[in-house]
């Protein structure tokens, strides 16, 4: 038994899984991974597992799964070719070799990375820098219009307010009752309500007079002094004195 084997055996706890163990065994062949003998590697692995078992070391399941798979690979490589079997044992062996190459590449890359001049271990930043500060300052802005408008707003809000109602020409209900009563007395025939409005009334005064006269007509009808007639809604309204 070589010295390497002893070391491997003692270090069983330290392996990062079966692929890691295979890589360590492969490197003990001391050839480029491209030239490695997969058959020899399989043999090494199976012997290693056998030894571990004989020493009653507890092996994680994935080491045993790998052992089973390698035993299958070994028999495939040794037995006469069966062209029906896909993938071929050579293909499987090649894939295993590619995986070992990749793991090895990353292991070496990791080692080279760790060996670099590392900040805080090999190179140091300034321990007590003054530091840089960014001070945010508000630059207040306002426009002259905002200022004046604001004052206008305050003044308007606080100024005494006087309400003035515009002088409007209207006909009161009282005046309309008086006028319609006076005119109806001499009207025996049906006459439309417009006939009772003052001559020359126009604009808002005419509207006011019409509204008041209409109310006056209703009031006089209630008192039994006037009769009203209308053919349909919105049709002309006719008045005449009660019989």
């Amino acid at each position, binding site marked *: 038994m070589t010295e390497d084997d002893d070391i491997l055996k003692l270090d069983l706890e330290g392996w990062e899984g079966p692929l890691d163990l295979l890589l360590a065994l492969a490197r003990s062949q001391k050839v480029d991974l491209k030239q490695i003998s997969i058959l020899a590697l399989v043999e090494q692995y199976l012997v290693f597992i056998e030894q571990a078992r004989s020493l009653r070391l507890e092996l994680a399941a994935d080491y045993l799964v790998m052992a089973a798979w390698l035993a299958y690979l070994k028999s495939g490589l040794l037995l006469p070719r069966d062209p029906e079997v896909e993938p071929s044992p050579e293909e499987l062996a090649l894939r295993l070799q590619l995986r070992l190459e990749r793991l090895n590449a990353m292991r070496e890359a990791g080692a080279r990375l760790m060996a670099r001049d590392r900040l805080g271990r090999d190179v*140091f930043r300034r*321990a007590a820098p003054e530091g840089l500060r960014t001070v*945010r*300052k*508000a630059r*207040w802005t306002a426009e*002259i219009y905002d*200022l004046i408008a604001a*004052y206008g707003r305050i003044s*308007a809000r606080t100024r005494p307010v006087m309400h003035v109602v515009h002088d409007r020409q209207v006909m009161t209900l009282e005046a309309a009752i008086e006028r319609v009563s006076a005119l109806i007395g001499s009207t025996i025939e049906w006459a439309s309500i417009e006939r009772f409005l003052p001559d020359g009334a126009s604009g808002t005064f005419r509207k006011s007079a019409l509204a008041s006269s209409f109310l006056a007509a209703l009031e006089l009808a209630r008192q039994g002094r006037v009769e009203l007639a209308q053919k349909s809604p919105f049709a002309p309204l006719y008045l005449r004195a009660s019989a």
Partner: protein
Amino acid sequence: MTPPDDLARAVEAVLFAATEPMPAEAIRAHVGEGDIAAVLETLAADYAGRGINLVERGGRWHFQTAADLAHLLRRDREEARKLSRAGIETLAIIAYHEPVTRAEIESIRGVQISKGTLDVLMEAGWVRPAGRREVPGRPLMFATTPGFLDHFGLESRRDLPGIDDLKAAGLLDPVDLAFDQLAVEKDDDDD
């Protein structure tokens, strides 16, 4: 600047990485034998014209940024901010009525002003304290500054439009007053 020898490089590195100013003996403990004093003098001269200086204070040496560049380490960033409605109204009252006390401002505005409002106006450089009113409590009065006139493009306060001008411009229109009142109250809550 002279190309540094090994000792100078070592002293440089040790002082750079140090957490506090170091006396020559402490430097020696790191870099070993050699004329530390001479190296320190040479380095101090080397760095004299640079953005970094090597200086001695009470027998202790350290690197520091050149004193005349201290202003670069602090960068002021200005951000334009619009005055709040409470702010602009308070400013308007001060401008039209100065000098005026806080209580007078509140009585004209019909709303209390929060503490921050006057601070902002003073921070903006538009308003200054202007003595005290000789009444019980001697309240502080406020007035506008020359900076205020500058900012608003006014020659003097007399350039501010009068009440009649405001009325002519429709700025005293009572329409929307109720809405304004609501907005003012809400604005003050935000302060």
